[in-house]
């Protein structure tokens, strides 16, 4: 029974990955950039999901970790020529430390729930202001990576075509999926779910709730930072006003909410639906020419999904596909 189910799931996943892997060969550059938006949203959703979906801690400040990853990798590259891969690790460490610090500060003083969520927003806003006046990384005028037109992709320096970034991001999404699945089957995963469901009962079973939350926050922040580093090299420009915004934090959490918080596929499904919906609305909007119509329909669709499927689209889709 389970063997059959596992086989069906594997086939579905392989088919999905195959489609994503060959898609760039058939698509115009514009659609490839749309798919990149989808993959980034999926990956960021997966990173956030570890914290909220598994350990039950609501962060609305994940733009902070994305931004730290982006700025650390970009600044090290611009100033000292540090390879993006090492910059990425440095960014992940800095963001992980920031996440751990915020978590330690909050949970040590019993700040939980909505108050914790507010605190995560506040830290992102502090950092926003700080970076606007941080001249080493360009302040509010921005930080720019040198653009070079190469005949071929330079994977070592992460300089190259959108297709290169597309495959890198696809690998990251699959990596995050594998990591999430692995963690959920280990003791730490069980402990996170127990903390999410009932911290007091979890503590009575010997779980150090403080350390469990801290681990989730650190890992989630580090993973988020890696996407920031990669996207810094894709976008080639960084402005505090577009990086450290609560709007970005909200974008990060929307995909997993739509797809299904705490599920493995939820962030991916949610990101796909949101991206397709966003593009469809842009097209409709362009043909009608009424400003603001996109946002109107986009939000309307989100409200509808949340009303009809409060636990997300993936649990419903999973039943339909009998996966």
């Amino acid at each position, binding site marked *: 029974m389970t063997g059959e189910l596992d086989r069906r799931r594997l086939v579905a996943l392989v088919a999905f990955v195959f489609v994503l892997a060959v898609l760039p060969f058939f698509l115009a550059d514009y659609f490839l950039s749309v798919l990149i938006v989808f993959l980034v949203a999926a990956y960021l959703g997966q990173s956030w999901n570890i914290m909220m979906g598994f350990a039950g801690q609501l962060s609305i400040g994940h733009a902070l970790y994305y931004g730290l990853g982006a700025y650390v990798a970009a600044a090290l590259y611009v100033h000292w020529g540090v390879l993006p891969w090492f910059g990425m690790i440095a960014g992940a460490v800095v963001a992980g430390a920031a996440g751990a610090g915020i978590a330690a500060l909050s949970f040590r003083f019993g700040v939980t729930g909505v108050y914790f969520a507010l605190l995560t927003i506040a830290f992102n806003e502090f950092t926003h202001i700080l970076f606007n006046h941080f001249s080493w990384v360009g302040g509010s005028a921005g930080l720019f990576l040198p653009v070079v037109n190469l005949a071929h992709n330079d994977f070592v320096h992460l300089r190259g075509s959108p297709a290169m970034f597309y495959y890198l991001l696809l690998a990251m999404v699959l990596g995050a999926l594998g990591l999430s699945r692995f963690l959920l*089957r*280990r*003791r730490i995963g*069980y*402990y996170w*779910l*127990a903390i999410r*469901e*009932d911290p*007091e*009962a*979890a*503590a*009575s*079973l*010997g*779980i*150090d*709730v403080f350390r469990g939350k801290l681990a989730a926050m650190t890992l989630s922040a580090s993973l988020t930072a890696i996407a920031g580093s990669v996207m810094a090299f894709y976008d080639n420009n960084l402005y505090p006003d577009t990086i450290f915004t609560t709007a970005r934090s909200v974008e990060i959490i929307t995909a997993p909410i739509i797809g299904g918080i*705490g599920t493995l596929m939820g962030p991916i499904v949610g990101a796909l639906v949101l991206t397709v919906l966003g593009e469809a609305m842009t097209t409709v909007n362009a043909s009608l020419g009424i400003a603001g119509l996109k946002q109107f329909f986009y939000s309307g669709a989100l409200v509808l999904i949340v009303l009809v499927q409060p636990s997300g689209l993936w649990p419903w889709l999973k039943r339909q596909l009998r996966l």
Partner: protein
Amino acid sequence: MSANLLTLDGVTKRFRGLTAVDNVSFAVPQGGILGLIGPNGAGKTTLFNLIAGVFRPDSGSITLGERDITGMSPHHACNVGIGRTFQLVRPFGALSVLQNVMVGAFHRGADPATAERYAHTILERLALADKAAQPAASLTLPERKRLEVARALATGPRLLLLDEVMAGLRPTEIDTMVRTFEALVHETGLTILLTEHVMRAVMALSHQIVVLHHGQKICEGPPETVARDAKVIECYLGSGA
């Protein structure tokens, strides 16, 4: 008589003006079953929370074996060997029955396969094996109470605190539970401290009974003695008992 596993000495807990637990002392011997009874609001659950580390006593000391555990945090209390159930059951609703017990079993080691096997043996013992794959939220209240026991037992405690796990059970189910606990104590040397309103269970299980009233210990002794005590009959059991 064997040595005492749990010793309470002059334990007091106040909430604002109210003294919930007032200078309570008693001991539970290793391998013993002690029943804690008393009317609602007598301080039974507060006493449990003091032992399990949820609250810190205002005065007095709590000792487990040779170790002073007064004011220890809940997860440390579990580490030193205290397992507890909650009167208002707190299952991990989204997890399956098996996963709930595995969370407890992981306390003994990090290997998932070992935790799963151990959780299965515990589920067998508490007659929940056929519900293993169900979400905990789908269980009936008596089943949830058994799940609480299973989860706490899975951590491998030396002392098990049972907070009204028999409430809502039918008489035959109560007898089954009583036999389960007797077997556990007999086979594993577990020590049990329980609170219960179901007299059938308390009288059958307890080697010793402590009666609380308004936070104070008013009587202590073997079940047959306590059942005849005038003060206990007046404030709790009633003349019909």
